[in-house]
């Protein structure tokens, strides 16, 4: 599904990713963990195609095609979804208007007919339930005035509407209380599918108690320094990331 080889990326001329390799197969859930500044969010943003992240070496292939030459919307239409760490508030653009345009852009790309208003609403109501959101959220401006928890739920709702093949969740657990975390995790679990891969970027093991990953990777200094199964996350939680830094190349402080 996703194959990253020797990825190097810079932000503001500062190297952040320094030879990252990652293989994600269909239906797999991978957790990327690591200390602050290790490059977790950079990885998520490079995959989604955000401006300002310059790839200097390596490749990112999605379903056999290079992602790096595609625009953000082309990636989205191919089935890449990024749940933002900080979802953007967009006053004046309703959730429903944005999602209808987005869903139909994806469908058109796949050669499917656009959904009419009735079918779209039916789907939206169904998917809102996955994250326990009220219908009024459809008609509110995107994330405007939403609480932290509502914003994260809205991200997962969008994921559920867009049915991506690869979903990257960037620190989706940050700022959530335990109830909101369970709701968000429930929504993600409901979208687990043998054809859909999920990459969870997180600092804490907490989320992984609710969304159990197949693989856990530790990112430090722009590289994966250790991979294992879900037990690795527990180990990290107990030991912290101190050992990571002591063993890794300290040439550039990106913390």
């Amino acid at each position, binding site marked *: 599904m996703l194959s990253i080889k020797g990825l190097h990326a810079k932000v503001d001329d500062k190297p952040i990713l320094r030879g990252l390799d990652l293989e994600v197969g269909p239906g797999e859930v991978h957790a990327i963990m690591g200390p602050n500044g290790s490059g977790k969010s950079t990885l998520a943003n490079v995959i989604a195609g955000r401006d300002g992240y310059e790839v200097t070496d390596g490749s990112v292939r999605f379903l056999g095609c290079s992602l790096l030459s595609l625009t953000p*919307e082309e990636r989205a239409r191919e089935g890449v979804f990024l749940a933002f760490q900080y979802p*953007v508030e967009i006053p*004046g653009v309703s959730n429903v208007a944005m999602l209808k345009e987005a869903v139909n852009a994806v469908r058109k790309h796949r050669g499917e007919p656009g959904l009419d208003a009735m079918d779209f609403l039916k789907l939206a109501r169904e998917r809102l339930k996955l994250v326990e959101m009220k219908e009024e959220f459809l008609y509110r*401006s995107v994330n405007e005035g939403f609480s932290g928890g509502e914003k994260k739920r809205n991200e997962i709702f969008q994921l559920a509407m867009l049915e991506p093949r690869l979903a990257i969740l960037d620190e989706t657990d940050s700022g959530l209380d335990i109830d909101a975390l369970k709701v968000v995790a429930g929504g993600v679990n409901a979208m687990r599918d043998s054809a859909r891969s999920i990459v969870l970027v997180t600092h804490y093991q907490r989320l992984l108690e609710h969304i159990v990953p197949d693989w856990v990777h530790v990112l430090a200094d722009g590289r994966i320094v250790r991979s294992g199964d879900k037990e690795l996350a527990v180990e990290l939680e107990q030991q912290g990331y101190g050992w990571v830094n002591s063993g890794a190349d300290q040439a550039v402080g990106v913390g």
Partner: protein
Amino acid sequence: MRTAHDASTYVAAQRDAAAALPAAGRRWLDQCRSAALAQLELTGLPDQSNEDWKYTPIRPITREAFAPAQAGSDCPRQFVVASTIPNLDSYRLVFVDGFWSPALSNLDGLPAGVTLAGLGQMLDNDPARIEPWLGSALGSEPHGFIAMNSSFVGDGAVVEINAGVVLDKPVELLFVSGCGGSGRLSLPRNLVVAHSGSQATVIERHVSLLENRSLSNSVSEVIVESDARLTHHAVQQESPRSFHVGGLFVRVGRRAEFCATTVTLDGALVRRDALINLDDEQAQAHLDGLYLAFGRNHVDNHTHVVHHAPNGVSREHYKGVLGDRARAVFHGRIVVQPGAQQTDSQQRNQNLLLSRDAEADSKPQLEIYADNVKCTHGATVGQLDEGAIFYLRSRGLDQVQARRALTRAFAADVLERMVPTALRSYLEQQVNDRMQAVSEIER
């Protein structure tokens, strides 16, 4: 270099036309016209040395000698039908190059207590009724173009709502310019009088028959008596080659409320002045504005709100969307006179620049001579939020869809509360169409 056609061109044209203007020979009216003419001759057309015109060069207008339009030009009925706002039920007066066309107008079912008529006809038939109103909201001529309008004053709309009458449908004034060919000047003067306790909505629309070059110089005077509620929507949608100068001059009485929306959709050079006098206690004014300018369009909105008495409220919110090499000016002057205590005044101007070459100049000006007042103002000039664009693109919207959605959202809140809803829907559509046409070429 070509000769500039300055005030003298129009002074001469007025002298040629004066004898044939409606009710010429009536002393008070002749005096009004000649005083305005003297003013035009004395001050000339405004230039950039005038602080109020600093950012608006009128050279595009003075390159050509616009000839005052003649009555009787033809405007096809189909055009008027095609120009109507879908689902808007209104009493409609249509003006062809500034002259009232009874044949194209529709006053069916007009209730008692309401007068809708052409100013020219009223001046001929019942001048005594007009005399106390004409010029009363305008006061002194603020600049040469308004003086020009006053010197030619002859036709336009008269809207009078008797005391206590609540008008069931909006009054629509449709001004069609360019009917008499290229290079015409139309000079309508409208008088709207809402007597005590009455309520009405007036929609003033300016459209072009053809893509002719024309100059519209349109002045509306509005008197809102005590406890009355008047809503005035002005929509400027003339051709991209047209010039439009005009103004709205309003007096608001005790506990009366005046609400206005000024929407500028197109025009090579558009300058609109608004002077709102809150004459008595608890008078309120709500002024909203939306201007779109692309290509090399230039839009200048000049508002001037004067609080004369205690407990007045004024709210101003103007928003502009500018692309290409367009330029917009907003000058918002608020004066709180001594004794106008407890004035509550807010002003906001927000500009969205879609291109690097567009420019907005925003100038708030507060003059406060009372010590117990609440006045705030804010002006912004900004671009679309790149973070929001990326967010939408990451959901699958392309660059154009994302930019359009955000631009539409920016413009939307000015129209959001607009009543009648048929006008709001129509304007939302017009704004969208305009975006559709231009956003392809942005970036």
